[in-house]
């Protein structure tokens, strides 16, 4: 259960941050009238293309892969932290 929580929270965190950054890049490219393509190897993350008068923005499956990678990274970090953590405290950051 703890491992699942760590994975899910890491995946959500990475997914949200990646989406926000990619969305900012996309609207900036759109506003500047520029084409943009970002990919993770063969997996597209973002594609902004201009076709005549219209602009096409596509979020690719690379975003999902980034989220999953974030989940795995958080899971691994949680395993490391687990051995060094003390008893729960009385505060939240």
């Amino acid at each position: 259960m703890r491992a699942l929580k760590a994975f899910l929270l890491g995946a959500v965190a990475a997914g949200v941050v990646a989406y926000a950054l990619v969305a900012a890049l996309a609207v900036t490219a759109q506003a500047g009238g520029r084409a943009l393509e970002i990919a993770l190897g063969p997996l597209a993350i973002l594609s902004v293309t201009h076709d005549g008068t219209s602009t096409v923005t596509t979020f690719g499956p690379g975003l999902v892969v980034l989220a999953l990678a974030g989940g795995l990274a958080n899971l691994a970090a949680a395993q490391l932290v687990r051995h060094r953590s003390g008893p729960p405290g009385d505060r939240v950051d």
Partner: protein
Amino acid sequence: MISDTDRLSLAPGVVFQGGRLADAVRGDAWPLNGSGAFVLSRTHRPVGQIVSEIADAFSLPLETARGDVLRFVWYLNALALVNVERRGTRIRRLVDWVVLAARLAPAGALPVAVARRRALDTRSVPRAVASSLAATLSRVVAVAIVATVVAVQFSAVVGAPGIAVPLALGIATGIGLGLHEAAHVASLRGVPSALVTRGRRTYVLHAAVSPTRRSVVALAGPLTVAALGVAFALGGAALGAPILVIAGCPLAAHALSLTVVGGDGRIACGL
């Protein structure tokens, strides 16, 4: 840094009664010895005066008394039981800080920051949010200004025109901090709580709650602000307003607090 002109005050929710120091937030009390009681019965007086009085009362050399009093005050302040009321101008304090930092530099250390505890009203969600925002207001403004200045520097380096983007990033960064803590406090409805700032850290001290509620409280802060960031990104994209999407980035970055990098994520993961 605590100077002779600074004054001590018991933090909100802390009382000194019958030789015991009681904390309503932690729901605990600690007995004090004679010299501890002597110091805490002299709150709202200058630290220098307390040092003189304790040196006279206990027949101690002044420097010994000063060391003992300051160690005691630092310890209580680190536990957010005592606030240190600053005297003198901000400029004077800044100069004192720089001088002390220069003296500590060879040891690779910085002056220890003083903790400040502020009261929170958790009787209802609106009160909790309002009291949290009021308690964090000065910090929100400071963070917004610093973030704006940093963003202006980056903006100048990359040659981006205008102040709108740095301003949006700075305001969103500051507001994100305030909303993050407000969401924590809102989820602590009915639980005695206090907001503590110490150096760059801001945290909510609260009474013990069940493990499940503890996880909910920890998740409430980052999830609320990150959701707002995503809403800004979606709304900005839908409206064709890049500035809204950019402002959503610092808000969405609060999602990183869900990971074990942040204290909230460690609590939520049960670590």
